[in-house]
């Protein structure tokens, strides 16, 4: 499998209150054509910043991004435009993702215009993409404006807008978290169908492991700007290797009355766990040892498909 997009040593620091704060500290990843990678973690773990860097919406402070064999880290102008047509984003909040003044037709024509698609092709492509997201018959939707649509319908339009340039990579940031439960499944299913039909690579960002499990084969867990564990989703959920992953898996709410209600294997909260030097998680880790204070663990392979950044390396569980 060749990687469609590959990130090497991505870093991003923001300046707030005169201090540099690392939102992302050394993240490497790769996604093959047709593959779906999930990135999970709590808010503030850097997952959204990572995704935004992959899409060149944010410039990395350090590191490289290779897309389809080309270094796109510093692309500008027409080259960047060409990349943009290839890599699209599905937004979290559908109520905010469409220009309130634009009709659905105009919202979908906008990317075609920008990417230089001839006008005579517009109508057909808009028609086709609305069929794909099941807003049928298309004619009934074209002249509506965002405020006339429900959340689920809006998210279909957002998905259509992402698909219409014909991308090879889709990044979806919490694509259903703002939607009602009864319509979430519809959007998730559409995402799966579109990927299968078009052979798209995808990066899904979510705090919800159950959702990631539904749409991604492979998952990466982030904590405070770093990747702490990576592997095939089901394996990772069944046998989490990193103590943080274990806590995360245990915390995911499940809709069954019979379930484990034991205390989570994690201490404190994100805000009082600012550890300097050593393992970033050690302040909240129930297994912290002396070495965790002295040495930051690096991401190492524990099986051919799994990597984890922990000194215990799978000896727990």
């Amino acid at each position, binding site marked *: 499998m060749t990687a469609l997009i590959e990130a090497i040593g991505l870093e991003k620091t923001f300046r707030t209150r005169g201090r540099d704060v690392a939102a992302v500290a050394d993240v490497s990843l790769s996604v093959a054509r047709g593959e779906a990678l999930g990135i999970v973690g709590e808010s503030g773990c850097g997952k959204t910043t990572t995704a935004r860097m992959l899409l060149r919406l944010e410039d990395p402070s350090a590191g490289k991004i290779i897309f389809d064999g080309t270094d796109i880290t510093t692309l500008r102008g027409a080259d960047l435009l060409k990349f943009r047509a290839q890599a699209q984003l599905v937004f979290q909040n559908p109520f905010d993702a469409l220009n309130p003044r634009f009709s659905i037709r105009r919202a979908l024509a906008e990317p075609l215009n920008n990417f230089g698609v001839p006008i005579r092709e517009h109508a057909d492509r808009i028609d086709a993409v609305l069929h794909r997201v099941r807003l049928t018959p298309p004619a009934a939707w074209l002249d509506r404006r965002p405020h006339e649509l429900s959340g689920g319908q809006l998210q279909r339009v957002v998905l259509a807008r992402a698909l219409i340039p014909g991308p090879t990579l889709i990044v979806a940031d919490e694509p259903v978290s703002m939607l009602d439960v009864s319509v*979430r499944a519809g959007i998730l*299913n559409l995402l799966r169908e579109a990927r299968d039909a078009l052979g798209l690579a995808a990066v899904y960002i979510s705090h919800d492991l*159950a959702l990631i*499990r539904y749409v991604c084969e492979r998952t990466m867990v982030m904590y405070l700007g770093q990747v702490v564990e990576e592997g095939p989703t089901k394996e990772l959920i069944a046998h989490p290797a990193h103590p943080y992953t274990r806590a995360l898996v245990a915390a995911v*709410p499940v*809709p069954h*009355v019979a379930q484990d209600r034991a205390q*989570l294997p994690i201490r404190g*909260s*994100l805000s009082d766990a600012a550890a300097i030097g050593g393992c970033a998680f050690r302040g909240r880790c129930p297994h912290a040892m002396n070495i965790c204070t002295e040495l930051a663990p690096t991401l190492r392979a524990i099986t051919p498909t799994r990597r984890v950044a922990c000194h215990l390396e799978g000896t727990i569980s």
Partner: protein
Amino acid sequence: MSLLSVRDLVVTYATRAGPVRAVDGVNLDVPAGSITGLVGESGCGKSTLGRALMGVLPDAGRIAGGQIMFEGTDIAALSASARRAIAWRRLSFIPQTAMNALDPVQRLRAQMLEVLIERGGLGKAAALARASELFHLVGLDPVRLSDYPHQFSGGMRQRASIALALALEPALVVADEPVTALDVIVQRQVLDVMRNLQARLGLAMILVTHDIAVVAYACDRVAVMYAGRIVESGPVADVLENPLHPYTMGLTHAFPDLYGDDMTLVPIDGTPPSLLHPPTGCRFAARCPFVQPRCAEEPPVTNGDHHAACWRIDEAAELRALAAIPATWVPK
């Protein structure tokens, strides 16, 4: 005898287009010493119901009918001053986003003392001691009483809100989406604090949420709301494992599970009806795969601890089997 018993409650909002019936004939019983989940999607009226219970509807909203019997009195009919006498001492509230619910320019200590002294009648020293004790109880360092709300993280603010809600040991706490804005780990921790204190203090709680998993984790009973009505209610195990109403059946298949087989999720097609001009009969009929002509008439509510409002309640077992098949839910 229920601690709280809501009968035929109607809450309307005045809008330019006419009155919107946000809560439309709700019946709900909350037994003492248990957690009742109130679950539903956005706009179903669950938060309005919570506000109506607390007596703080927005200016445009009013209780247009029905009763709210709490500890033997109809609190919907009470005068403002009589209402104030029971407020917070018997009936308190945990808000969704504690960020806006705490006064931004006052330290937590002042906000705790205000309740303990003005409403609880404690002396200053006793109130301070109690405030520390409450903070300790919810897992916050009492030192942080001297902080302002913005210095707290989301989870800590929510803990502080719980401490405030429990300050006067009320009989009933209404919690409106208390963990919605939180990350999974914090969400679980805050739910645990709520559950433990509820059990320890023996109080009753109404947990308003859109998340069935939260209900499954934390609640003893659940009421499912749809378009201003309660369509099904009963013990959590019964409602979630053996739903009687097609809407509840749909919900249980609508989102992914962390374990189990790979199955295709099933969306419920369509959108809830307008509450400005609600349809007659069953409000779920337009989205229901099991709809029949008689659904245009008001469905009967079954009796018993686990009950639902559906014409086809006798066929519930067969419908459940059908509901598990994705093809059932594909619109015709």
